[in-house]
């Protein structure tokens, strides 16, 4: 038979554990609620834009559309997709992004591989030349003048050449490559592989995660890049998506301000069309993102921990 004392102790202990469990549960619940709110805060703007893009003019202008489309229709998307300039801009932006990413990766891999060889003579000097540019730059006006003097204005090259290597990404790559055992490279070279051959057959396949990460960063940077397009491109045929989108939003923003001051304006871009264009420019990024996400988290972390 259990003594009264023992029962007391056991019940006391179990209420203790129960208490701890319940505070733990409360704690978990608070965290889950806070994170859910943060996640919703990330998503709601997109959901609203999506809803507006599929809604009719009347519910939009009377301010009834929040998170679900009203008077569901796809007119705005029909307009976006039948706008030849918009489709051309999309095609150009995809071409530009792919070309930019391929060139950047070739240059970054070339530099990163050579500079990851710790005993390369002159390595310190080359690193110094590169690292200095991370901390001091000529500024956008000398950059603009250079681009103009090289006759790159209004060419695709103005959007590619000035950004070929990001020193920061190159350093992430170098710190990853430094983790590949030297024995692997040496054994390849003993087998008669040239340094180029080692790079292509051993280094590149082993570095796929970090290469995927950096490709994503370059590609997203180019896709989203806006300032240089504003500075270097004035020909409408060469407008990338961001510049086109900016001008559209800008026009309607001006009209919004003018409406506030009481001036009616006749050429208002419909809200649904604006929303559809925003979705149109965002979707390509969201399509690539999940495929590469698993790489970039680990890629950034190795870079961050080592670098």
């Amino acid at each position, binding site marked *: 038979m259990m003594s009264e004392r023992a029962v007391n102790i056991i019940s006391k202990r179990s209420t203790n554990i129960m208490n701890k469990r319940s*505070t*733990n549960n409360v704690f*978990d619940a608070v965290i*889950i609620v*806070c*994170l859910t709110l*943060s*996640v919703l805060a*990330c*998503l709601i703007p997109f959901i*609203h*834009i999506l809803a507006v893009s599929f809604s009719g003019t009347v519910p*939009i*202008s009377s*301010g*009834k*559309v929040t998170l679900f489309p009203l008077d569901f229709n796809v007119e705005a998307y029909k307009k976006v997709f039948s706008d030849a300039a918009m489709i051309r801009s999309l095609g150009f932006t995809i071409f530009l992004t792919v070309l930019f990413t391929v060139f950047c990766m070739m240059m*970054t891999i*070339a*530099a990163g*591989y*050579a500079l990851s060889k710790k005993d*390369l*003579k002159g390595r310190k000097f*080359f690193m110094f*030349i*590169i690292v200095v*540019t991370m*901390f*001091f*730059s*000529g*500024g*956008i*006006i*000398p950059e*603009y003048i*250079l681009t103009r003097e090289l006759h790159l204005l209004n060419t695709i090259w103005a959007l590619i*050449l000035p950004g*070929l*290597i990001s020193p920061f990404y190159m350093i992430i790559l170098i710190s990853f490559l430094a983790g590949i055992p030297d024995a692997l490279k040496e054994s390849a070279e003993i087998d008669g592989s*040239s340094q180029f051959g080692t*790079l292509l057959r051993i280094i590149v396949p082993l570095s796929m995660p970090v290469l995927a990460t950096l490709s994503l960063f370059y590609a997203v940077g180019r896709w*989203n890049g*806006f*300032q240089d397009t504003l500075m270097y491109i004035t020909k409408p045929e060469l407008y990338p998506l961001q510049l086109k*989108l900016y001008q559209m*939003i800008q026009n*309607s*923003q001006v009209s919004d301000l003018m409406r*506030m001051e009481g001036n009616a304006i006749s050429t208002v871009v419909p809200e649904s069309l604006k929303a559809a264009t*925003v979705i149109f*420019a*965002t979707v390509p990024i969201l399509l690539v*993102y999940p495929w590469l*996400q698993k790489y970039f*988290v680990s890629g950034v*972390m190795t870079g*961050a*921990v080592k670098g």
Partner: protein
Amino acid sequence: MGYARYFRRNWQMYALLVLPITFFIVFKYGPMYGVQIAFKDFNFFRGIGGSEWIGLDGFREVFANHDFYLTLRNTLMLNFLDLIVSFPAPLILAIMLFELKVVWFKKLSQTILYIPHFISWVIIGGIVYQLFGTQSGMVNNLLMSLGFDSVPFLSDKNYWLITYLLTGVWQSAGWGTILYLAALTGINKELFEAAEVDGAGRLKRILHITIPGIKPTIVTLLIINLGNMISIGFERPFVIGNLAVREYSDVLSTFVYRIGLESGQYTLATVVGLFQAVVGLIFLLAANYISKKLTDESIL
């Protein structure tokens, strides 16, 4: 090993470096050579070399310009407020993600929280105007349907400041967790177990183990942020700003763009850019010095 033999064995490495180094010399050092136009009366017909020297006249003109001080103040003000508002957000998010034990929910949250980082400022600008517009924005529609007055989120400078700061948090908080999460995985697990045995609650563990464990990361990031006080991106204030709030939204980067590329005052714009670069470098070196003193860790 003689140099000739060394080079014969390693020429491929140097061959790989030819194009990258050429790139840095042309596109990074080229503009640095061009900085001399800050001291010249630049025009395109004479070119950089042929333009006339004017000494410090450009600097005198900039330092007498009212807009220069306004944009300098705004740059410091926006960066400082950003630091206060945006700096703690990723830290709190990262600790919550770290404490969360439900794996699928953690992964899902991370995936979604990173997304805003990959959205361009132009698109964010478009979204901000659709959400916060005075006439047709969703937030004001909701406020008005609840019987409140509409709030000029984008056309009153003080409200605009709030919009600007919250947009920054929205865009950067999720992505900012990555560095903290990397640091958090480095904390010794035994410390948590020992604390649990000693009866420390979870809040106590966070305060006494988690936060001290990532203190070096926090301090380093804080110092980097302080070092970058005077540099400000162009796209965010340019896209979210507008004429009605220019008194706050005009910053050094948009000022350089406006006087340089829109009005063609290349010399003055270069002066402002050079001022920003030099002061920025001094800030950064100072930050590095302080970081070394405080944490024994150099950020450069």
